């Protein structure tokens, strides 16, 4: 009896929702116009020029140092080009270390005023009065940021390989190129997470400065504090009571798992597995005992890929989840402040 009453109700509600949701025309109409305009803005902005110059200088500096080292062992090493990314010599850290530092900054710089900037310039009502859905505007802005990031990274990758050819005098192998390309992809999505986060803040806060600060605070949180918090949480949730080895392993595993909530960890692990073919496991030996994991023969690319598959999908999923959050927030936002 109750079912007989409730069923039509449910149906009516569902219809109501459907009726409200039905919108005519593709949600992506006009998106490429947004992408083109935003990319042109990014590429001509002073802000990006400064960051690009920094990255290129970093690449050249670290490359120069790395090639000096590597030239001495050209004959012995089959992954010379990957060493270009990972080799460090005082006072400069390895290129990848600097990259992990710079990419979030670039991504934040690309996103922190993407939505609130339109409100502050009072262009938002004018743009949304054009035949375009909010979906297309937001995705267009996101893709423009991602493409700009991809463009910058690709340019740096080409620079590195070009310098490699010049200074090392040997051509890169197919496997090296494959690994470097996958690493490029991971780098872009690592940036994607920070870009989406910056866009979330640019929707939440009307002041671009506030949004930038919030993004940087999140970035510092993951760089400085998340490792510590993961350690403390692991100790609290999986305490060592009797001193069994299993307890230590469980705690370490928990700490590792918690650490992976940070995009920085995901990226670092992806980076290590892709650029150091000798790495066979990202288990509890990682990352503090990274060197200890080297057990002779390098893994083929396919196996390294299996190793970092969860990390790589995690980076992509994180980007998608944050973008979805930005989407929901933006859809609900009143057009007037």
């Amino acid at each position, binding site marked *: 009896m109750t079912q007989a009453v409730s069923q039509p109700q449910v149906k009516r509600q569902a219809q109501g929702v459907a009726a*409200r949701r039905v*919108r005519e025309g593709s949600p992506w109409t*006009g998106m490429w*116009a947004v992408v083109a305009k935003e990319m042109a803005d990014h590429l001509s902005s002073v802000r990006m020029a400064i960051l690009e110059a920094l990255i290129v200088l970093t690449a050249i500096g670290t490359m120069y140092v790395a090639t000096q080292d590597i030239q001495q062992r050209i004959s012995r090493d089959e992954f010379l080009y990957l060493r270009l990314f990972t080799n460090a010599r005082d006072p400069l850290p390895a290129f990848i270390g600097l990259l992990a530092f710079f990419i979030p900054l670039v991504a934040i710089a690309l996103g922190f005023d993407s939505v609130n900037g339109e409100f502050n*310039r009072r262009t938002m009502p*004018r743009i949304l*009065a054009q035949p375009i859905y909010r979906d297309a505007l937001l995705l267009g802005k996101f893709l423009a940021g991602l493409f700009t990031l991809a463009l910058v990274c690709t340019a740096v990758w080409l620079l590195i390989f070009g310098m490699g050819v010049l200074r090392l005098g040997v051509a890169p192998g197919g496997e090296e190129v494959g690994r470097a390309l996958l690493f490029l992809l991971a780098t872009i999505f690592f940036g994607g997470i920070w870009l989406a986060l910056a866009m979330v803040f640019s929707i939440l806060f009307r002041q671009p400065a506030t949004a930038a600060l919030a993004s940087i605070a999140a970035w510092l949180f993951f760089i400085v504090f998340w490792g510590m918090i993961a350690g403390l949480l692991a100790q609290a949730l999986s305490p060592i009571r009797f001193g069994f080895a299993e307890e230590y392993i469980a705690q370490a595993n928990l700490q590792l798992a918690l650490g992976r909530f940070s995009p920085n960890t995901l990226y670092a692990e992806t980076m290590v597995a892709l650029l150091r073919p000798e790495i066979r496991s990202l288990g509890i030996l990682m990352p503090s005992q990274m060197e200890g994991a080297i057990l002779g023969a390098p893994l083929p690319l396919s196996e390294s890929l299996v190793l970092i598959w969860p990390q790589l999908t995690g980076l992509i999923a994180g980007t998608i989840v944050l973008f979805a959050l930005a989407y929901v927030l933006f859809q609900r936002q009143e*057009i*007037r402040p």
Partner: protein
Amino acid sequence: MSAPIIQTHELTKKYGNFTAVDRLNLSVHAGEVFGLLGPNGAGKTTTILMLLGLTEPTSGSVHVLGLDPSRQPLKVKSRVGYMPDQVGFYDELTAYENLAYIARLNSIAGDQIKKRIDEALARVGLEQVARKRVGTFSRGMRQRLGVAEVLIKQPQLIIMDEPTSGLDPEASHELLDMIRSLKEEGITLLLSSHLLHQVQAVCDRVGLFSHGKMVLEGAVDELAQQVLGGAYRIQISADGAQSEILKALKNVPGLAHIRAVNSRLYEMEAARDLRPEAAQAVLSAGGRLYKLDVQAQSLDDIYTAYFKEVEHDASRVPTAS
């Protein structure tokens, strides 16, 4: 008669408990210039945003060009030009680049874009500064660029929110002239303003808004007739016995209201232009006539008079109960 260009039925918008637009029934017909008038906070902008599908109505229905703006927003927005109350542009881009972005968002064919932009800029007299950065533009130039932007999509309906606010008298004059020439092309226009006298000159019909309700609607003459009892205000300057003159003027047929402003000046309101009858009345009362003046009633007067009446009525209610 063809279907109205804009039609709303019991259109309502609530923000929480606050009703910004209250059961609005509005229809605007093809070729008309309609003025949405009322003080700040009356609900004009909210109404406009609902017409464009930029804000969801709480209840009621909207049809613009026969389309539902919440269901078919792309179709509505590609046919309707909208100039928001504070037009903002990308300052670092040129006027041309700003318009080119809008043209692309409207999916205007690549080979058409330049032609449309050049035409629109020439139309508003900005062709000389097409390649200048908008950051260097004055308020009046920005407003004209806003009109050019609206023209790019060759709209059937143009909605302008407070088009003249913040402009100096000359710039608002130019803008009103532009509005007139758009009307001559057969474009339907909806304007909103809190400056009643400015839009009075260009509007065929107006709707007076107050606290989310449209309290009066019609042509300015009609409203003057309805609220003030007369669409014409006649001023008479005459010497002579005041009581005699007043008595004679009161007997003029068609008179709605008469008062003596001072010993020499009389003011009458009437449905028709009663100057000949008034002159005769003054003379017949032995007065000496110096001057006769007639003005159409201003919306400001209508508005003020209407709200005095309403407040008067409202203040009477508590004493009666």
